[in-house]
């Protein structure tokens, strides 16, 4: 899993006025609490991801920032200005929609120019900026096409161009890669990350894909049931999950109860050796899944609990790996690779 370097070093510290500040945001639909009181600061120039399963409140939070949803309680600040009661049209953010929301009756160029036209830019300026932006998203010369004539990936980039051509300090992206196939999605992840570094603006990115979140984000917030479980850099959230939910959602839930404490260990940090090794906790291999690059083992420990272990297939063949089913093994790990997690989340 690759984590690209943070776009700007100062993004880590949330220097000065945050690009987005949410305080006590709450949104209820009838009996359903979509967002149950969220406080969040997103720094200028950060690639910030809202990560969580569907229905965890991440999209609602994004829509509250954009202004499409009015919070039942709480404040939204953009660059230090309270915009809670400001209409979406007057907020200095632009959005890339999950379904792209390209206007079907307009050409690609007209779509990209829309925001500039609303602002009253001259026809020539609009043309020039839209063209430059289409070049930036690698769609030169497609301005005269209609959205229906484009592929999903191309539409996605038009939606991107239409949003960033307005030069927003904050760009909101609502699962923008959700409809693309895996290979295209991975390409777009790298492209988006590079684009964000190039533009130097804040990206607030919603996804349910933990790998995508870890790949792209400077920092991320893990959502669960309308609340934020943890905020931190990719490495922090992955290596030091604060709650069992985060441990399970970001990676594999490897939680053990030992001495009245709950600890978690990442599967690749566990060393699996023969029973005769003498050191480590004894257990039995319950399941073996050969994944090509690595093999995943599920081991039931004699002292209770089940751990997932991942081993690179450095010298093991698939037959050797699969033959370890039912074997007695010992698992060991370094104490600094275990993290205590909060109880009763």
């Amino acid at each position, binding site marked *: 899993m690759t984590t690209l370097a943070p776009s700007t070093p100062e993004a880590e510290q949330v220097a000065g006025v945050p690009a987005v500040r949410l305080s006590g945001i709450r949104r209820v639909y009838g009996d359903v609490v979509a967002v149950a009181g969220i406080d969040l600061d997103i720094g200028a120039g950060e690639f910030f991801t809202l990560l969580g399963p569907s229905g965890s409140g991440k999209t609602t939070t994004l829509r509250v920032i954009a202004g499409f949803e009015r919070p039942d309680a709480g404040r939204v600040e953009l660059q230090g200005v309270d915009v809670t009661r400001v209409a*979406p049209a*007057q907020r200095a953010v*632009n959005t890339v929609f999950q*379904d792209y929301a*390209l206007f079907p009756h307009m050409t690609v160029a007209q779509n990209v120019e*829309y925001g500039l036209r*609303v602002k009253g830019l001259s026809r020539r300026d609009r043309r020039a900026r839209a063209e430059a932006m289409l070049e930036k998203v690698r769609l030169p010369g497609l301005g005269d096409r209609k959205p229906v004539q484009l592929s999903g990936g191309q539409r996605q980039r038009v939606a991107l161009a239409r*949003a960033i051509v307005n030069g927003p300090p904050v760009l909101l992206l609502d699962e923008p890669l959700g409809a693309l196939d895996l290979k295209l999605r991975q390409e777009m992840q790298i492209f988006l990350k590079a684009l964000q570094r190039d533009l130097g603006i804040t990206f607030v990115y919603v996804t349910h894909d933990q790998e995508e979140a870890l790949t792209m984000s400077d920092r991320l917030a893990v959502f669960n049931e309308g609340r934020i479980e943890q905020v931190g850099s990719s490495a922090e959230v992955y290596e030091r999950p604060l709650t069992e939910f985060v441990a399970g959602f970001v990676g594999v839930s490897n939680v053990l109860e030992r001495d009245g404490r709950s600890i978690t260990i990442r599967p690749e940090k566990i060393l699996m050796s023969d029973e005769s090794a003498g050191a480590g906790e004894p257990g039995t291999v319950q399941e073996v899944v050969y994944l090509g690059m690595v093999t995943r083992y599920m081991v039931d420990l004699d002292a209770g609990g089940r751990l997932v272990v991942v081993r690179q297939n450095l010298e093991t063949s698939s037959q050797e790996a699969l033959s370890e089913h039912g074997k007695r093994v010992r698992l060991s790990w370094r104490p600094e690779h275990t993290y205590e997690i909060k109880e009763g989340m």
Partner: protein
Amino acid sequence: MAVDAGALEAGSPLRRARLHVSGFLWRRRWVKALALLMPPLAVFLIVYIGALAALVVSAFWTANSFTATIEHTWTLANYRLIFSTSQPYLHIAAVTLGIAAAVTLTDAVLAFPLAFFMARLAGPRTRVALFVMVLLPLWASYLVRVYAWQTMLAHDGSINWWLNKLGLPDQGLLYTNWAVWIVLSYVWLPFMVLPVYAALERIPDSYLEASADLGARGFKTLRSVILPLALPGLVAGSIFTFALTLGDYITPLLVGGTDSQFIGNVVYDFVGQADIPFAAAFATIPMLVMGVYLLIARRLGAFEAL
């Protein structure tokens, strides 16, 4: 039931015949389609196209007013009469077209906000209630509704009663073109509301959100996003309101005045006088107008909205 490769050669003759028939139909889909479409197609061809052809052909004949018989000689005499400036027919056609255009415009202006409210703002219960209110008049007889308007528009009718209540003078609306315009606008309104509703309902919320997100306020979004996307629905509705008005002759008869003759009324009169050729010739005028109208409507995408 297992049917093996030799099935077509074995078994009882009846069973073999059935296998042959179903195999034949399976191999030639068009035979099945033809069998399905034959009855409606036959009716359509004979009754509809046949009648139209007879109409167009007879438009080029003349009627002998003394013998009341039709003379089967090709002539443009009927059309010369229609387009003669000393005759009232051009004026009648203009009044018909003018009122049809006015009714269409009025219905578009009335239907759009109503359909917009129904499609995008109303809750499910309000929407159903509005649907029933829009459709309810269609379940009552057309004649009943026109007669109802006749009493409302009459000198001592409810409209003047309300005007007097508001301190305004009486209006002699009944038996004028105003009355024809009001009644036809009312009668054909549902035919505009429904296609406009369908077009508006299909616009995803995200388009409107995207427009707002890009800085457009309500009016700009209405003009640049909603109206262009609703246009096919408006044009589809206008086909109904325009064509139905063009072909009407009862409303002008019941609530119109001396200047409210429609093409339909003239056609009706000439049929009554056994001058079928002139009636046919005059009837081709609205047909031609509708033909042109439909061509324009197709270019505006109205048929994708149906």
